[in-house]
C-alpha cells in the first residue's frame, strides 16, 4: 500500500497551475499535467503521484471523501465549508483578502437590517455575528459586484485581489475581514496511512515556499 499512487487534486485554473509549479520544484513533477488537453488525470510513475484537475470549490470534497489524498484549495473555501480535513501548509500563493465593499459614500444605517450579497454566506454570517450586526444574507454565485449597483444589496462580501473589478464598478473596499491564500490539505485517514510520504512532500513544499518568499 505504501507504494501506491499519491492522489492530489488541483484546482483548475491559474492557482492550480501555480501550485503545480511549486510541487514540481519540490520534486513532484508530472510533465504531462501542463499539456493542453481535455484529460483530467495525469500520472507520474517515477514519483508515484497522480494529479487531477477539479473545480476549485470541489477540491475539499474530493479530499474529505478520500478520492484525493491531498489537494490545493483556497482558505476561503475551507472557512466557508469547514470540511473535515488537515490543513497542512500555507502555500503563500493565490493571496487576496475577504473584504466588505460597497458604493462610494456608503454609510451603515444601524436602524435597518443590512443587506449583504456574497458567495460566502457562512463567512459573512460569522463576521457580522461577531459585530452584533443584524444582516440579510443574499447568496449569489457570481457577478457579486452587480448587487449594490442594482440595489439588490447594500454591500458585498467577496474576495478582492487587485481591487480592479471593484473600481471598474464604482465600488470601494471598506473593511478587510481576513487574508486568504492557497493551502495544502489532506484527508485525515490517508495522512495516517501515508504519513511518511505526506510529511516528506509537505516539508519539501515548505522549503520551496520559503525560497519563493525570499525571491519576492
Amino acid at each position: 500500500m505504501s507504494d501506491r499512487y499519491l492522489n492530489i487534486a488541483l484546482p483548475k485554473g491559474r492557482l492550480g497551475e501555480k501550485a503545480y509549479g511549486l510541487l514540481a520544484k519540490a520534486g513532484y513533477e508530472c510533465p504531462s499535467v501542463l499539456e493542453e488537453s481535455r484529460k483530467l488525470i495525469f500520472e507520474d510513475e517515477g514519483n508515484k503521484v497522480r494529479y487531477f484537475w477539479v473545480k476549485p470549490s470541489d477540491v475539499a470534497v474530493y479530499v474529505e471523501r478520500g478520492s484525493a489524498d491531498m489537494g490545493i484549495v483556497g482558505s476561503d473555501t475551507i472557512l466557508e465549508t469547514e470540511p473535515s480535513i488537515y490543513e497542512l501548509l500555507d502555500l503563500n500563493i493565490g493571496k487576496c483578502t475577504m473584504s466588505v465593499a460597497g458604493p462610494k459614500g456608503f454609510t451603515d444605517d444601524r436602524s435597518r437590517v443590512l443587506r449583504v450579497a456574497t458567495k460566502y454566506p457562512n463567512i459573512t454570517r460569522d463576521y457580522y455575528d461577531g459585530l452584533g450586526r443584524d444582516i440579510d444574507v443574499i447568496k449569489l454565485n457570481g457577478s457579486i459586484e452587480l448587487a449594490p449597483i442594482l440595489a439588490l444589496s447594500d454591500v458585498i462580501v467577496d474576495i478582492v485581489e487587485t481591487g480592479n473589478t471593484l473600481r471598474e464598478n464604482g465600488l470601494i473596499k471598506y473593511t478587510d475581514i481576513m487574508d486568504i491564500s492557497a493551502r495544502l490539505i489532506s484527508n485525515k485517514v490517508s495522512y495516517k496511512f501515508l504519513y511518511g510520504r505526506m510529511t516528506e512532500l509537505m516539508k519539501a513544499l515548505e522549503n520551496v515556499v520559503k525560497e519563493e518568499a525570499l525571491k519576492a
Partner: protein
Amino acid sequence: MENAQNLRKDEYIQLKLRELYRQYGYLPYRMGRFEEYELYMRNRNFLRSDRILTFTDTDGKLRAMKPDITLSIVRDYDGAGLQKLCYSESVFRPGNSGFRQIEQSGLECIGKLDPYLEGEVLMLAVKSLKTIGEGYLLDISHVGFVSALADQYLDSIFSMDILKELARKNADGIRKICAEASIDKEITDIFIRMSESYGPAEEMLDIMKDMVRNSDMEKALKELSDTVKILREFEPDGKIMIDLSMADDRNYYSGLIFRGMTEGVPEYVLSGGRYDNLLKRMGKEGNAIGFAVYLDLLGDMDESRDRKDCDILLIRKDTDDPKDIVKAVDELIAKGMSVRVEKEQERIRYRKKAELKDGVLKIYE
C-alpha cells in the same frame, strides 16, 4: 470477505464484534423502547448533533428516535460496581440529505476505572479493527495532556482556538494564534510538534516527555503510558499510534481518547474515549469509557463493491420441467451455494451461469 452466512460485510462484522465483546464478558444491552426527547434535550452538549428525529407517542409524549446509545446506558447506570455492556443498534442522525439510520456496534465500561480496564477497552478496539481488516491503525491521545498546556498559557478563547487549529494540524494557524496571544517560541514549538508528530505509541511517549510543562501534563502522560503498557500486554504487535492533535472534543472526552482507521475507508470507523463528564452531568459517581464502530462506513469498502447477487444464475426456459428446476436448485443449495432462477440474465451479478439441458443441470465456467 467471504463468509459462510453470505452476509454483507457490515452484517458479518457486526456478528463477529458481538461475539468478540461477549468473549471478554461484556453483556449485551438492548434498547427496545424510545427515549423521551427530554433526555437528549438536557444533554445536547454530549451529542454529535442537536438535531433529533422526534415523534409523538401514543400517550401524547414527545419521544425521539435515538441519536445515541451511550446516553441511555449512562442514564440506566445505577452506580453499583462496574458495568461492562456491549450493544449493536441503529441510531438516527442527520446526514447530507435528511435523517439517516446508521448501524453502530460498541461497548461501554462504567464504574471505577483504572489503567487495566482502559487497556482492556483499547485492546477490544484493536481487536475490533482487526476484525474489519488487517490494514488498520488505532490513534490514541489524552485530552488532558494538550489542554493542560493550552490552559496554562492561553485564556479560554485562545485555548479553544488553538485546540481547533491543532485538530486540523494547521501549523500556520497555530503560529498565528500564538503570536496574537504573545506566546514565546518555546511553547509555540511544542504546539507545532503536537500538531505534526505522529508515530508508534512508545516513540511518541518519549517525545511527549520533553513537552511536559506542568503537573497536569505529567499526570496525563503517566496515565497514558500506564494504559499503553497494559495494552501492550494484550496486543504486543498492535498498530497503536499517538496523535496529539485529537484534542478538540474536550467537552465530551475527559482523558483517554482514541480513533480507529481501516485502510480503504476515508473516515474514522471507530471512535471512543473517557467520558467522565457525562456521568457528572447526570449526577453519578464514577468514570466511564467506551467506543463505537461505525458499521455503515464498511459498506463502501472495495470488497463490497464486487459483491455478487448469487453464486449461480440458473436460466429457466419455458420448455424446462419445473420438477427438474426445483431438483437442481435444491441440490445447489445443499452444496452451500446461492441460486437465483431467472428467465433472463439482466442486471444480475453472478459467479457462474447454469441451465438445464434435457433436464440435467449444466454449469458454465
